[in-house]
Structure formats: structure tokens, C-alpha cells
């Protein structure tokens, strides 16, 4: 097995009474595009700052490329950071901003010129070498920050919500560029964001954090289709929830008695005993609303439909089940508000989450 690029073992961080990160175990593989997502205050930025060395863990150990980082100051760590505010040096031009790390490492003049030129062309900023950061657009500043952080060839590049300040269109463009860049340089990226769509589109694996706890680690598909907790299910996308109880089953496929619907086959994590209270999650795009009534039971009334281009989202009210959401392709006729529809989903599109006993 290869040495992880980043290894967090039992890491905990307290600020006074506040626990920012609770007992975190996490391994990031070399060359991986890894994202940590979660709402603000979930501890994701604190985690990143502990890897960078700006915060010391209260307990546990941070290792980078197999080296224990305890007591190692930020300027001695083989990691570099792209800051949320970019933190470009206002008194230095683009060239000197990018060259900063090389100058600190006392690299020779000729090599500085060559490597800065290489880094600047990597982020497509040729011709702007002499500009001060304030003369650049947000997207360009962001690319300077990237070039500056990559020039020391770090083992791990840490990115703290680097696209947060950009507008939507630019953000989408930068996502593609970031992914391409990561593939080109092959450096391990550890990316922190509250935007799950952004994380999904770029990452090999994502970690979801909430209230200082790691909720789930997995591929974007895992996290989206097989959420480990209700929090994850809701955080990474819209989820229709149905209360139920496991009747029987094992090794990942169960028969669940869903309240108001009846027995259905549902996938889930292995090893849950019969009688377990569960919530069955069905993503809106997997919930089909057909205008004619079919045999198997579940009907609902259309509240309204909203058209978003590629998809159309339909809000539904089902007796005893509350509000549900279905999403379908944007083509075709929108269902009229007030009309009755029948709802169906494929068995392998439902996923159950154990809520233990009694939790709603």
C-alpha cells in the first residue's frame, strides 16, 4: 500500500470550549483530487489549516507524505495553500508573487525565470507578469494564487474555497480548468468548499463534515446515491424521505415496510437487523410522476412545477407523506397544478438510512 499524501489520525481541534474538529481519521491518496465539504462552521477550513500548519491539533497527528508534521512550522511543510481571499502580495507584481516561494527557497535567478514562466503559462497568464494584483480580474487573481502555490511543487495543494468570490459562469469555467490543471501537474489537491456541486464535478473522493464530525468519505456517486446519514443525504442534494421499518433482508438489500406505501425493496448498508427504523431516500430525478393513475398505490397532487432549463422540478403533496419533489427532463408538457399524478421509482434507486430506534 502506498503512503497517503495526507494522513489525519485521531485529529481534534478545540478553541476554548468550542470543538471545531472531533476525532478525525482521514487518509488522502497521492495524486487524488480530494474535497472536504460541509456547511460553514463544520470544521473543514480548520482541518485544512491544520494540514497547512496554521493551527496545531489539540490531539491526534497530522502526517504529510508519511512525515509526522507535529511541531513543523508552516514554512517547513511540503504543502502550499490557495487562500480564499487569494492573499496576493499587493506590492509585488504577478511575476514576483509567483516567484515568492522560489526566492524564499534561494533558487538561482535563471531557474526562477524558467519556473515562473512555466507556472505562468500553466495558468495562462502570459503577458501579465508586470501587472500588480489589483489590476487583475478576480479570475486572473485566482490563477496567480494557483501558480504561486504550485511553483514550489508541493506534495499537497490545499485550496480553501478558492472559487467562492467568482461569479457562476467563471466558477464553472475554473472548475474545468482546476481539474485539468490537477491532472497535468499530478499534485494531490485537497479542496475545501461548501458547494457540493463544485466538489462533485472535480473530485475523485469527497469527505462530508458536519459540526466537526466526519459524516462520510467516498466517491461523489457514493455520497450522492448512498448517503451514510440523513445529514449527508440532505446536504448533497434534494432528498425525498419516507419513514419505514426493515421487515427482512441482508447484505445490502432489504424489504422495508414504508409508512403509507407498503412493502418495497430498498438498497442500504449491509448488516442491519430486522425491525430497524429507517428513512428511505429517493432522489427527485428518480421519482417519476405519471399523469395517469397506475396500480401500485402512491398518488399525489401537483402543487406547482418550475422550469429550470435542463430539468423541470415538480412539487407534490402526497396524503400522509407531506411534500415531495420530482424532477424530470425539461422537455414536454408541465403538469398542471392541482392535477393528480401517480408516483413510482425503481427499487435500486431507493437507499435506506438507519435511524436506530425512535429517532424521527
Amino acid at each position, binding site marked *: 500500500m502506498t503512503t497517503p499524501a495526507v494522513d489525519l489520525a485521531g485529529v481534534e481541534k478545540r478553541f476554548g470550549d468550542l470543538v471545531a474538529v472531533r476525532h478525525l481519521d482521514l487518509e488522502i491518496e497521492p495524486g487524488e483530487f480530494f474535497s472536504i465539504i460541509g456547511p460553514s462552521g463544520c470544521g473543514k477550513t480548520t482541518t485544512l489549516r491544520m494540514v497547512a500548519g496554521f493551527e496545531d491539533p489539540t490531539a491526534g497527528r497530522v502526517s504529510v507524505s508519511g512525515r509526522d508534521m507535529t511541531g513543523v512550522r508552516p514554512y517547513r511543510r511540503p504543502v502550499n*495553500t490557495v487562500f480564499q*481571499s487569494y*492573499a496576493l*502580495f499587493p506590492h509585488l507584481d504577478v511575476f514576483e508573487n509567483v516567484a*515568492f516561494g522560489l526566492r524564499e*527557497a534561494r533558487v538561482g535567478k535563471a531557474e526562477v525565470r524558467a519556473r515562473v514562466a512555466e507556472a505562468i503559462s500553466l495558468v495562462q497568464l502570459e503577458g501579465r507578469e508586470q501587472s500588480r494584483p489589483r489590476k487583475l480580474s478576480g479570475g486572473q487573481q485566482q490563477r496567480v494564487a494557483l501558480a504561486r502555490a504550485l511553483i514550489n511543487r508541493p506534495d499537497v495543494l490545499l485550496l480553501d474555497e478558492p472559487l467562492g468570490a467568482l461569479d457562476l459562469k467563471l466558477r464553472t469555467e475554473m472548475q474545468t480548468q482546476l481539474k485539468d490543471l490537477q491532472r497535468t501537474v499530478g499534485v494531490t489537491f485537497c479542496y475545501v468548499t461548501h458547494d457540493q456541486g463544485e466538489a462533485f464535478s472535480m473530485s475523485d473522493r469527497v469527505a462530508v463534515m458536519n459540526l466537526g464530525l466526519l459524516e462520510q468519505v467516498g466517491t461523489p456517486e457514493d455520497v450522492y446515491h448512498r448517503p451514510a446519514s440523513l445529514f449527508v443525504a440532505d446536504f448533497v442534494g434534494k432528498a425525498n424521505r419516507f419513514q419505514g421499518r426493515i421487515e427482512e433482508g441482508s447484505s445490502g438489500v432489504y424489504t422495508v415496510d414504508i409508512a403509507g406505501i407498503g412493502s418495497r425493496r430498498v438498497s442500504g448498508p449491509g448488516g442491519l437487523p430486522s425491525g430497524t427504523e429507517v428513512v428511505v431516500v429517493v432522489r427527485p430525478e428518480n421519482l417519476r410522476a405519471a399523469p395517469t393513475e397506475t396500480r401500485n398505490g402512491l398518488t399525489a397532487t401537483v402543487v406547482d412545477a418550475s422550469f429550470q432549463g435542463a430539468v423541470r422540478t415538480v412539487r407534490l403533496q402526497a396524503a400522509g407523506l407531506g411534500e415531495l419533489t420530482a424532477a424530470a427532463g425539461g422537455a414536454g408538457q408541465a403538469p398542471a397544478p392541482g392535477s393528480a399524478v401517480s408516483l413510482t421509482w425503481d427499487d435500486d434507486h431507493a437507499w435506506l438510512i438507519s435511524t436506530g430506534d425512535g429517532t424521527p
Partner: protein
Amino acid sequence: MNIRRHPVAAPLSFLILLFMWVPLIVVGVNSFNTQTIMAGWGGFTTHWYSLAWHNQDVRTGLKTTLIIAVASSVLSLFVAVTGALWWRRASPKARAVYDGLIFARIILPEVVFATALFFLFLKIHFSLGLTAIVIGHTVWNSAYAAIIVQARMASLDPALEEAAADLGATPWRAFRRVTLSALMPAIIAAGLLAFTFSFDDVVTSVFLQGASNSPLPVVILGMIRFRITPEINAIGLLVMLFTVTIMSMAVIFYATAGSLGRAGRRGSMLDMYR
């Protein structure tokens, strides 16, 4: 009603400007006037400049003034920069107290500080003289310097030093290459401003000079007490030109400092003049 278009507005502004500038123009013109009593134009001469240049009192006064101005500017900058570094990490309450002390030094009349220092120095048997004047000037000069340096400091991203550390800079290197360098335009502007203020100060100097040599403005004051000679005009014009040059440099550096930072403008609402 538009005040600017009022028929009285333009002539009134003109008169006010006239009253402000005519004395300065008269000083300038008379410095080249051969007529000693300055009642009319007697012809062009540079004699008064040569007289002023060879006046031993003026020379000593200029030297004293320069020493005081340089020393108090350097001290003011030291107070302002260290203060700004502390201010950045201080609690909001501590900041408010610190800012209050700065504004107090600007708002309170100079004569109050001068008197207070005078009595303090007598009480603690600190001899009056050059050092006393330097301390006196630093008391209020450091307040102006602090405002300018702090405005720039506030506009700097707190993550800059972390970014420098992240890129391999030790804390000292990060301070020198990032914080201090980014503050430099403001530091230079503040230094020049402090220098100018100290250069033309009379009140504090008179109170604290004791038996030592008088700085130039006090020398000039002493000269006109008895008799106004065209020599005074020559000295006056030179001091004026010198002060304006330094002030312009300060303004230029300050403008540079402002345009570098995001919130750099914050400081420009504060008057540059006393």
C-alpha cells in the same frame, strides 16, 4: 437654491483666495526687492538670499530644526509602526482606547501638550533642550503617523503573512518581505508628513527649548520681533518652497499607498493639514 451659482459666490471665493495668497506673494516678491523698507519696487536683487545664507543664527536654527525634525520623524514612525502591528491583533476594546488616544493628541491644542510637558519635565528634573523638543514633537507627530500607517495596515489582508509563511518565509522574512514592504509607501508618507510638521513648529519648541539653540521657526519669530527686513522674506520663501516640496512628496506617496490597498481610501478623509 444652488449656492455655487449665487452671484456673490464667485467674487467672494476670489476675495478669500486673494486674502490667503496675497501675503505669500508679497513675501515672495519682496524677497527680491532692493528697497529695504519694502514700500515699493526698487529693483531686482538676490542680496537678501546671500544675507540670509550667511546669517549665523539662521544657519544654527536650520541645523537645529533639521536634527529635531529627523529625530522626531524617526521616533514617530517607530511608535506608529509598532502601534499598528499591535493594533492589528488587539481586541476591539483595546483598539478603541488606542484610537481615542491618537485622536486626543490631534484634537487637543498643541499649547496644552507643550505646557503639560514643560511642567512634567521641570517636575522630574529633565533638562529642557533638543531632546525635550524631540519628545514634544513626537507626542503629536506620532498620532498623525499612526493614522496613516494604520489606514494602510487595515487595508492589508490578514492572510498575507500566512501566505508568506506557506511559501516558505520565516516569520522575520514574512514581516520584512510582506508586511513592512506593503506598508512602505504609507511609512514614507507618514515620515515626510511628520518631518514637515516638526520643521515648522513653533509652540512646542518655544516651551521646551530651554537654554539650547532655537530651531529655525523660533529664530524667525525672534527676528521679526524687532524689525522686518527683506532677509526674512528670503528665508520665508525658502521655507515655504521646502515645506511644499516635502508635503507634495508625502501626498504622492500617500496616494500610492491608498491605491495599493482595497480600503486604502479610508485614510484620505482625514485632513492632511493641521
